[in-house]
């Protein structure tokens, strides 16, 4: 019997970081907890809950899109006689608890915003057969009524929280593991497509809280020592580069890594704004392990950036990209090529901008359509214009039907290229990411230089191809000629080109893997590991 008091059901998108904090505070209070992934399937979850027999199950409903999945799961568990208290939490549940309780009848309550204190009080109340109706931050059912309790202010000092409970760390760089980590919570920016600001404003707390740099270093050191984890992926929307208008936080963080002697042993990735990239500062961060940066670029035109309220210009973005390239720091980015106001003119300008960013093959061309998330400015504008569609995921039509046709066509012919886990964008991004880890870990050598150059050459070829195709196709759709020109064969040609590029990327991914094994043999003298890996992989080379 594996009895647990509380079981938290959450998707492993961020290494269970959010529920990891909840689990840690519950464990500190003596509760036995477990975290499970809904991807395991309802039958296995039911079996597990029957064995664990918890008195509380928490479901992490982060986005609107998760509601239908959790509705099915919760209904199945209730129908199979799991009778304990079911609560929901997470980003979307916090912003719209009424919808959660209305849509998922099996859920008893919602814990809103920072859930650490509320979930402990809920566990105390249930385990002691007390009422939970007075707990701040809770929304619950009373008969047919939905009762909103007073909102609980967010935890003021994040460093009073224990380090998050971590289950199995995700494999990231070949045989190495990676951990997601937070330097703070919240964001000071107010982008029109994001609801983080609305979330913290409604929570009644500061828009952004930051941990002490020494505590973040202490958490990294602890993971490095106990789990041999070398890679850290900061999950902050905006890493605290200039939190108080100066770079003190970053300086202290890097000093901390150095004084603990782990600056050369670990590698970290951050998300930040383009206007925060400063050559001297990022050079120093690179020296202390920064190897990859995710930038929320989103648009390459003055008008578009203004509409998204990004508070940055295209020229500043390009300057930032050039700085990161000069410093040999890897780049990943978000780009919202398709927006409610996208026209063929703005599309062409953005395709040209993407060529400036990615024309050298430094990273793959990637882009998305804006999802009108709940309580964002984009959502409220679409609602006002009567354009909001509430399906399994909120959506909208473009201003011009031919743009809808163009978007659908691009999604169908480049779907595998853009979204498949083994497709050009994901595999290309992974190869580049691994190239930068290798570079930080072992430095540049002849093999790395060759692999890196080839990877960029393949990405350049693919990037120029997709941009050219999209530019030519937009002219066809714009002129309304898509039905007159036979586009049927194009799909097969694109598929062949895609397979060709992905095959080449796969070969260089393999090359990097064997180059890494050679380094482990020569530098780390870890021949046992190399032999084990070769025993596993060598037979596949000759099939």
């Amino acid at each position, binding site marked *: 019997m594996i009895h647990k008091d509380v079981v938290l059901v959450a998707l492993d998108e961020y290494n269970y970081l959010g529920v990891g904090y909840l689990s840690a505070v519950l464990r500190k209070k003596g509760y036995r907890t477990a975290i499970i992934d809904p991807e395991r399937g309802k039958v296995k979850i039911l079996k597990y809950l029957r064995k664990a027999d918890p008195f509380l199950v928490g479901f992490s409903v982060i986005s609107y899109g998760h509601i239908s999945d959790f509705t099915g799961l919760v209904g199945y568990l209730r129908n199979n006689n799991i009778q304990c208290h079911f609560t929901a939490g997470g980003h979307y549940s916090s912003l719209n608890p009424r919808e959660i309780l209305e849509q998922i009848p099996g859920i008893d309550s919602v814990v809103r915003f920072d859930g650490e204190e509320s979930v402990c009080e809920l566990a105390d109340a249930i385990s002691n057969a007390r009422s939970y109706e007075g707990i701040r931050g809770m929304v619950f059912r009373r008969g047919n009524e939905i009762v909103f309790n007073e909102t609980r202010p967010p935890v003021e000092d994040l460093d009073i929280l224990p380090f998050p409970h971590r289950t199995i760390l995700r494999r990231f760089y070949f045989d190495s593991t990676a951990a997601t980590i937070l330097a703070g919570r919240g964001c000071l920016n107010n982008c029109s497509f994001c609801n983080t600001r609305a979330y913290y404003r409604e929570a009644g707390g500061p828009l952004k809280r930051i941990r002490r740099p020494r505590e973040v270093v202490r958490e990294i050191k602890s993971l490095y020592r106990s789990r041999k984890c070398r890679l850290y992926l900061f999950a902050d929307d905006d890493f605290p580069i200039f939190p108080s208008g100066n770079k003190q936080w970053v300086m202290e963080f890097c000093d901390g890594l150095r004084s603990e002697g782990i600056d050369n042993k670990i590698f970290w990735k951050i998300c930040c704004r383009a206007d925060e990239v400063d050559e001297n500062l990022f050079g120093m961060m690179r020296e202390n392990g920064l190897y990859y940066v995710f930038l929320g670029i989103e648009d390459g035109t003055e008008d578009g950036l203004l509409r998204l309220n990004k508070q940055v210009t295209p020229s500043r973005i390009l300057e930032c990209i050039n700085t990161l390239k000069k410093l040999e720091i890897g780049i990943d980015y978000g780009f919202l090529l398709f927006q409610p106001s996208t026209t063929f003119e703005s599309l062409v300008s953005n395709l040209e901008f993407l060529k400036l960013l990615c024309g050298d093959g430094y990273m793959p061309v990637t882009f998305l359509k804006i999802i009108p998330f709940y309580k964002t400015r984009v959502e409220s504008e679409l609602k006002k214009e009567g354009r909001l569609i509430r399906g399994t995921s909120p959506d909208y039509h473009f201003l011009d039907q031919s743009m809808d046709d163009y978007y659908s066509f691009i999604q169908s012919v480049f779907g595998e290229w853009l979204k498949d886990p083994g497709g050009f964008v994901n595999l290309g991004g992974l190869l580049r990411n691994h190239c930068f880890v290798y570079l930080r870990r072992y430095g540049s050598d002849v093999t790395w230089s060759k692999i890196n150059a080839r990877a960029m050459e393949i990405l350049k070829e693919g990037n120029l191809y997709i941009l050219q195709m999209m530019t030519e196709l937009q002219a066809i759709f714009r002129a309304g000629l898509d039905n007159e020109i036979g586009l049927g064969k194009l799909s097969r040609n694109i598929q062949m080109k895609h*397979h*060709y590029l992905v095959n*080449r990327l796969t070969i260089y991914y393999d090359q990097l893997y064997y180059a890494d094994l050679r380094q482990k043999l020569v530098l780390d003298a870890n021949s046992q590991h190399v032999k084990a890996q070769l025993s596993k992989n060598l037979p596949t080379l000759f*099939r």
Partner: protein
Amino acid sequence: MDQDLNSKINALSDDQLEALLNLILEMNEHKDEIVTIIGTQMEYLTQSLANINTVATILALPKPPVRRMIPSIVRRMIPEIADHYPRLMNFPAEMSNLRLKTCDMVSQLESEIKAIKDIEANIAKLLM
């Protein structure tokens, strides 16, 4: 797992292990040459023969992952292309360039496959 192969790998010295890794890295470069040759020629052929699907079908690249498919897929393709020679040779005179390109491609592929076979032989020697 192949126990025999496993014990042979375990018996290797560090120098032999490094040599083995170098051979694998070299072999992978030839694999890339093969994919590149096919990819480049395929594009030319499909463009030249927009209405003739046969060649495109024969030359269609394997789906990833390629690791397990090359060189076996190429070994299989070569005779198929050779079988197709008579049809290629019957193409009109203005397509002579295509014939040349196809022959050139086959010869390049054969040379790359020979290089891979040599490396395989060296790997086999190491693992004897």
